[in-house]
């Protein structure tokens, strides 16, 4: 029954798909500066539903600033951001979450005092509603709510294969695992858009491969749209459907990996950057 082999369909070709996909987030002519210093200059691009979108560029290209703009931590002086079809007003950082945007941080920003479990549970905060007085009682509604969310969290722990460190305080974990927990925390928010700020920074090859696998799985299993920053070209090229390249706060290229890779400006920008 060679049948099986033949019929085993691989994941749909991204390139083919992208055309039809609807736009989730659109950035138009955004500029950002701190006290005169321009971090981002007139950048426009979009992120489509269900894709893995990479933002790459040499150090200091304004990648992180871009991310901070997207999730409302910085407010651009110029330009508009269209989120799910609506032009987004100036919003408070905490509103990003309720808008369905989750993120991880360049240098892990876990809650050091808590266990892996609690860290990921914290991702559910927005989805839990039992008020203070139920919490006082604990037994009954509050406990049930907790349990129902614990189930979700356990699925994530299972998904990321971190059962062994479930009850370990995150401070004690090796860097690679911390990154994984942070990803889990973001996943717990069940975001529409997941922002990953250098998810593989400071990882060894093996860890990088694991992380890549998880990122792809997240994208395929949950259909989560992912925008990730990485300055390791190699990784990005395998992972992402489309890539936007920044350099000195300006956009120098945008398109599918192979295209971008060929682009002369990109090559120049990366000259001297060892990869």
């Amino acid at each position, binding site marked *: 029954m060679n049948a099986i082999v033949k019929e085993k369909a691989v994941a749909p070709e991204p390139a083919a798909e992208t055309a039809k996909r609807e736009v989730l987030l659109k950035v138009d002519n955004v500029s950002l500066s701190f006290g005169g210093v321009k971090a981002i200059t007139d950048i426009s691009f979009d992120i489509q539903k269900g894709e893995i979108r990479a933002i790459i560029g040499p150090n200091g290209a304004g990648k*992180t600033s871009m991310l901070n703009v997207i999730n409302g*931590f910085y407010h651009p002086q110029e330009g508009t951001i269209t989120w799910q079809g609506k032009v987004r007003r100036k919003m408070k950082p905490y509103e990003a979450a309720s808008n369905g945007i989750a993120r991880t941080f*360049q240098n892990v920003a876990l809650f050091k005092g808590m266990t892996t479990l609690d860290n990921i549970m914290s991702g559910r905060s927005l989805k839990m509603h039992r008020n203070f007085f139920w919490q006082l009682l604990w037994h009954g509604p509050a406990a049930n709510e907790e349990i129902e969310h614990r189930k979700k969290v356990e699925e994530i722990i299972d998904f990321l294969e971190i059962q062994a460190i479930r009850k370990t305080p995150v401070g004690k974990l090796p860097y690679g695992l911390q990154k994984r927990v942070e990803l889990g925390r973001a996943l717990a928010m069940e975001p529409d858009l997941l922002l990953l700020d250098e998810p593989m920074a400071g990882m060894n090859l093996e860890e990088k491969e694991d992380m890549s696998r998880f990122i792809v799985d997240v994208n395929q299993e949950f259909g989560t749209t992912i925008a990730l920053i990485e300055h390791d070209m190699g990784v990005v090229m395998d992972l992402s459907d489309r890539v936007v390249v920044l350099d000195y706060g300006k956009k120098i290229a945008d398109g599918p990996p192979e295209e971008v890779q060929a682009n002369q400006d990109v090559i120049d920008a990366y000259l001297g950057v060892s990869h």
Partner: protein
Amino acid sequence: MLYDIFIDPFVQMYDMPDFFLQVLWEGFVAGILYALIALGFVLIFKASGVFNFAQGIMVVFAGLTLVGLNENGVPAYLALILTIGVMGVLAYGVERVVMRPLVNQPDIILLMATIGLTYFLVGFGEFVFGGEPKQMITEQLGLPTGSTAFEIGERGLVILQHIDIAAAVIAVLMVAALGIFFNKTRIGRALRAVADDHQAALSVGISLNQIWAIVWFAAGLVALATGIMWGARSDVSFALEIVAFKALPVLILGGFTSIPGAIVGGLIIGFGEKIGELYWGGLVGGGIESWLAYIIALVFLLFRPQGLFGERIIERI
């Protein structure tokens, strides 16, 4: 009512300029003393990032030691020198016993340690010299007493205590001295290096421990001076401990690491407090001196969280 709040005080200021001047002077002197205490805080904070709650007690302690020694028959000037010695020993001890083991601990822990130190010094001071208030040995130290009165307009009168003038002068001298110490001397520059960047300081071969001992000693001297001044105006007692908290709002205004800031902050608080008390305090039954300073600082904070001289903080992630 509104009249009492918004008009009447200013009318009074106009009607009785002499009184107003007197108030300003009081504020000025109080400010100087706050500034002096704040100075002690700044010295230590600058060099070690430690918020030294014990500064207030060090003032009292210094004063007590001086007076105590004198009471036990030690001639004033010798007592003064001995006290300086004691402050030196204290500085060394603190560096050895408190600072060194607690290096790199979170602020709050160090803060707590200095409060622990406060307890210890209070206990120790009382243990040795007894708890009851003492008279500062102003004359013996050859500090001016008495007062001079100035005629303001007709029948207006402003009285300046000589000791206050002395206080002002000494304060100015001390600031000047510190300024020179920081900018001209090797250790002083080293100190600033430490304040800016521990690693850098270490790399140019400065022993942090040394530095700490020195700043604590410097702070000790400042405390002594403050103690004398303050003691001369009221008397030397642990009530001062509370007053020492006033240094906090001062620092808030001036910023934790700026010496000029400390002075300016001190004066602002000094003036604000006295004027507030004498012209508005009455409306709420007086005694607002006890908290006005903090409220001023609080309001100020809300608008400029980094202090007068501190630079702006940009949040990054």
